[in-house]
Structures are given as C-alpha cells and as structure tokens.
C-alpha cells in the first residue's frame, strides 16, 4: 500500500514537472512544426492570399488612374448584358458536360469494377484513362480543331466517306453544333477522371458486404443503391465541385476551336473574363468579375456541403 501510496505520491508530485517538461517539449515540437510549415504558408500567401487581396483591391479601383471607386466596377460588370450571355453559355455547357461526364464515368467505373477482374487489364484501363487527363488542353484543342474544322476536318471526311452526309456539316459555325463540339472535347478529356475517382471509391466497398448481398439475392441495382452508392456519396460531391470549378476555368480548347463564336454562343464566363481583362484591358471590371465568381463558388460549396451528406449513412 505504502509502496503504492508512495508511488501515487511520486506520480502526483512528478506530474507538474513532467507537465512542465512536457510543455517545453510540446513548444519545441510546435516550433518545429511551424518552422516546417512556414515555407508552405509563405508560398500560399504569395501565390494565393496576396493575389486574392490584390484582386479585391483592384476591383475597388478605377482601371484608369487607380482611384478608389467603391463598388462601381461591380455595378458596371453586372449591368453589362454580355455577362448574362456568358453566364447562359456557361450554364448550357455545364448542363451538357456535367451529367454526361458523371453518368458516363460512373457507368464505366461500375462496368470495369464488376466485369474486369484481371489486374493487368485494370492497369491497362487505368493507363488509358490517364492519357486524356495529362494532355495539355491546348493540344486537345488543336486535335479537336483537326476533327471539326471546315474544309479539312476528319469528322466530315469520315461521315461523307460513309455516305452519312452529302455535304460538310459546319460543326463550329452553327449555334447548336458549336456548343456540342466544344462540350464533346470536355467530355472526352474529363470523363476518364470521373471514372478513376469512382473506380477508386468502389474499391473501398468491403467484399463481405457484397458477398452477403449476393447471398441474399440482391440485384445489380439494389447492390449499387444500397451497398456501393453510400461509399461513393462523398466522391460525388468532390467530383461535382471539381468539375464545376473546371467548367468555370475552361478556356483553351474553346479559344482554339471557336474563339467564343459563332457570335458569342460559346463565349463562356472564362472567355468573357479573358476578353474584359486582356482585350478591353478593363482590369477593374475583370477583377470585380473574378471576385464575384469566387464568392459564388464559395457560397455554392458551403450550401452543398450542408445539403449533401458527406458521411455514409
């Protein structure tokens, strides 16, 4: 007892010292952690925080002279009817590419997950899926132009060779086909990314759950909706936001394929912002637009994370 009691006393008496020593030790650890983080935080400040603050500052100043103009650039940006044309075009583009890429990517992931068992075949599919993602968007735009261009486009040539059409289809000159052409490039490049994400998600579904469901006679759809979908739910949100952010950034292939035309049919928000910034050189209005896009995305993300459950049931 004594011993025990003594130990207890010792332990109690030693505790403040250890806490003191421990406190010092933790401080050193913290200092080390901060020292390690400092270059990263510094880089983030230089490449993210400073430009962001600079853009906000720019949006409150006149393009000519740099005088403080309050929210005038925001008002001027919102009054411009071309902004709403660009928003409309972005909405149509997103309405085409997002569902197509998510459904096709998910379908492919399920198909491969359920039917392809060979590790080599899976590796080959992984490599094939990676190729479009790593090609620079400019190169993708040039390749797409060779497919759709008037006069020498491969697609028209093949269609005419097969007797499907008698005369060239001006893919990039008509409102409907131009939007489809630029969307098809996005779908080609980014469906594999969606496939890879969902395929990785499907690998996390426990084998026992699937085996048990199969024993119970679950159908393919039940298996997907009751067993696999809950594991994919957080990934849906990630894919959705990643792709929405990409749709807002998309530029290269549209610039090369149509230059935003015909008229302003394919002038998406990013192309419009580029024009305001680098053709009109209205840096104040361009900064105001950029800040508004950033705020809208942040609000959308906050709303979606509240509405869509991130965790599995």
């Amino acid at each position, binding site marked *: 007892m004594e011993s025990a009691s003594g130990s207890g006393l010792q332990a109690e008496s030693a505790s403040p010292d250890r806490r003191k020593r421990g406190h010092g030790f933790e401080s050193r650890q913290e200092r080390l952690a901060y020292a390690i983080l400092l270059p990263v935080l510094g880089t983030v400040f230089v490449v993210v925080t400073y430009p962001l603050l600079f853009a906000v500052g720019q949006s409150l100043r006149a393009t000519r002279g740099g005088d403080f103009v309050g929210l005038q650039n925001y008002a001027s940006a919102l009054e411009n009817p071309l902004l709403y044309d660009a928003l409309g075009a972005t909405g149509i583009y997103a309405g085409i590419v997002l569902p197509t890429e998510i459904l096709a990517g998910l379908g492919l992931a399920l198909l491969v997950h359920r039917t392809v068992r060979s590790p080599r075949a899976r590796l080959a599919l992984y490599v094939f899926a990676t190729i479009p993602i790593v090609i620079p968007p400019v190169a993708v735009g040039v390749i797409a132009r060779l497919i759709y261009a008037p006069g020498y486009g491969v697609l028209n040539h093949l269609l005419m060779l097969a007797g499907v059409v008698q005369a060239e289809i001006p893919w990039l*000159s008509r*409102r409907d086909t131009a939007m489809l052409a630029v969307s098809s490039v996005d779908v080609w490049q980014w469906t594999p990314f969606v496939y890879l994400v969902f395929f990785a998600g499907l690998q996390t579904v426990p084998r026992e759950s699937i085996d048990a469901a199969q024993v119970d006679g679950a159908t393919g759809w039940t298996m997907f909706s009751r067993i696999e979908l809950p594991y994919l739910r957080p990934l849906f949100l990630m894919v959705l936001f990643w792709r929405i952010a990409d749709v807002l950034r998309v530029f290269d292939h549209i610039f090369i394929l149509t230059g935003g035309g015909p008229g302003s049919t394919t002038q998406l928000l990013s192309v419009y912002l580029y024009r305001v910034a680098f*053709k*009109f050189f209205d840096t104040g209005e361009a900064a105001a637009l950029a800040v508004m896009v950033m705020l809208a995305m942040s609000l959308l993300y906050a709303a979606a994370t509240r509405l869509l459950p991130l965790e599995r049931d």
Partner: protein
Amino acid sequence: MKRWVGLSILTGVAVLALAALLASSGLVAAQGAKLVIAAVAGNESLGLKAVAPMYEREHGVKLDIVEMPYPTLYEKLVTTFQAGAPTYDLVMLDDPWMPKFGTEEWLTPLDSTYGFKRDRDIPNVIYEVGTWPPPRGPVPPSEKAKPKHLLGITVVGNVEMFMYRKDLSPAPKSWDEVLTNAKKFNKPGSMAGYVVRGAATNPIVADFLPILWSFGGDVFDANWNVVIDSPASLRAVKFLVQDLKGVAPSGSENIDAADRSRLMAIGQAYQSTVWPGEVTGIVENPKVSKVIGKVGFIPMPAGPSGKGYGMMGNWLLAIPKASKNGGAAAAFITWVTSPKVQKTYAEAGGIPARKSILNDPAMNKANPYFSALAKSLEAVPNWRPRTDQWNAVETILGTNLNATLAGLSTPEEATKKAATEIRALMKKAGY
C-alpha cells in the same frame, strides 16, 4: 596580406561600379551585350531571325528573339509595360497597338531621343503610322495636347492586299467585279468563288474593314461618333455576309488566314484578301502550294465610293521606356532598316517597306507581291482607328459580324448591337 585583400575588394567594387555605370548609360551594350527582342511568332519575324546572326557577327551584340503568338504578344507587352519591367530592349508591335502604347507613354521617342530622321526611300505613311499622337485623322481627346513623336519604325511593311487566280481571269477592278467573278468561278465542293476570313473578332474585322471603307462606311467619323450602323456601313456588312458569303465555302465563320491561304494554295479558292505573310508562307511557297505563278496580287479593288482602300498592318520596332539598352536598341533599328540589310532581310523572307527594294525587278521575280505592296503603300492605305480602345472595339465588332455571318442575327441587328456596345465603351473611355 590584409592590405592586398582590402585593395582587391576596393578594385572589385570600383570595376563593378564602372560596369554598372556603363550598362546604365547603354554604352557597354555596343560590345558583348545582348538585346532582348519581343517578336511575333510566324512569317512576320522570318526576316528578323535571318539577319540576327549577321548583326551578332558585325557588332558583337547577341540578339535574343523571344517569339510569342499574336494575342499572347499583346498581353505580354501590356502587362510587362504596366509593371515597368525592363524585360525587353526592343518590341515588335502591330500598328493598331500604337494608340494603346502611345497613350500610356510606354515607348521611347526615336526622333527626340535618338535623332531618327525620315528617309526618302521609305514611304511617308510608314513614319505616320509610327508617330503618336496620329498626324492625321481623329485624335483621341486625351492626346490632343501631346507633342507628336516617332515611337516606332516599320520592320514588316504589311498592307492587306487582294489575290485572285490570274490564270483564270483578269484582275478585278472593283468589288462588283469581285462578286461577278466569284459567281462565275464558284463551284461548291471544288472551288470557292471568294473566301471570307470570317472567324470571330480580329480575323473578320481585318477582312471587313477594306470593304467597309471602299463602300464609304466607317467605324467612327472624324469626331469619334460611331457610324458602323450608317446606311453605307450597313451596305458593306450586307455585301460581306450575304453577297460574298453566298459564294464562299461552308464554315466561313471559322475560317482564319491560314485556312484561307490553304484553300488558295490547293487550288480550291478563286480569290480573297491577303496579307504578305500568307504569300511567302503558303500561297507562293513551293513546298505547300499547287498554284505557284497562277496567283495575281493587286491593291484592294475599288468600291462604290470609287476608291479601294488597303489596310495597314505594319509591324514596328520600338524601344520600351524601361529598356536599359536604349542606345544599342536604336543602333539595331538603324542597322536593320538600312538599304543593305533590308535587301538581305527581304531575300530571307522578310517583308520590307523600302521603295527601292519593293520596286526592284529582280526582287519582284522572287516575290511576286512586292509591286502590289509598293502600290498599296503609295496609295496610302487606311489604318485602323487610332484609339487605345481599338482592341475592345474590334472584339465587339468582330463578335457581332461573326454572329450575322453565322445567321444568328440580321445585318441590321448586328450593326445596331455593335454600335450600341461601342458607343457605351467609348463613352466610358472618355470620348
């Protein structure tokens, strides 16, 4: 020993200070220095690249030519100048950029700073296009009080001209004849009667302006009032998007200069407008063309106004104010525009502006467009409106013209919309 160390440090500091002094004065650049030139990628910089090794050999100055695609070059230059960075010692600039660069006072005057004088062998219009504020035509309100200075010298004497298949018909004298010939030779699928360079923004505007001026229309009047929706301008728009489109290949809304020249080079087009760079690069290039010797080059045909207007598209060499090698850069401009070097420059594919070279029979044999270019310069081609808002105006006009060419709006709607947007832009810019 300590004394030696101290003396060595003192000598080192003195040498460095002297070097810095010489470098800042521009004197050291004459020997063993480097000039960084921002240039446009493409045929327009062929001549410059060809004579660069000559300059290095003769003067010991290395030329670092940084090439960028057309739209990137403009953005790069504007952002570099805004930052006041001494990145480039010399810049190649398209003449419609002069109003922006002149208004912002980003360039060093070549006349008052380096004593540049006019040369009688170089057409006057070359000096006029390099002068800011503009010596003729409307002057932007903010520029009226500024003294005129020569800010750039043409290194590529580009003027937009006209090309046609001379083996099939005589040269058209008017736009009416252009349309008549186009209807005669148009065979859908095998030969286009006329190629409209109709891609959105800059391309379609470049194709349209000579027609607009020849029809008596314009973008602005002498007082910067927008007149693109005037009856004469509307007639020109209809001529392009209805008459000429009717004899053009499908997909005109996406055809740019390279597509137009390719169609001409493979014998699938009868006529179109043309820039000199397309002639050397594609139409008269034996490696790619099937129509060598079959294409005629002439100044722009006349319109209902009775006159044809070519369009200036000169590329100038200018010295940014931030350059630390101004003296050496000026010496290079003098050298590269000299008669002796211009001949070598032209032989290497460069587009000269000297009358003696453009009218030289031997040079004309090798470059069949030289005589047309000389005549176009002599006739004093029009330049695009001299306002620093031109890029924005061109974007608005080019988007609306492209829309009406694609049938998304009527010519009346397109001109009205373009005029409204341009008026709002110019008002905001203080015009």
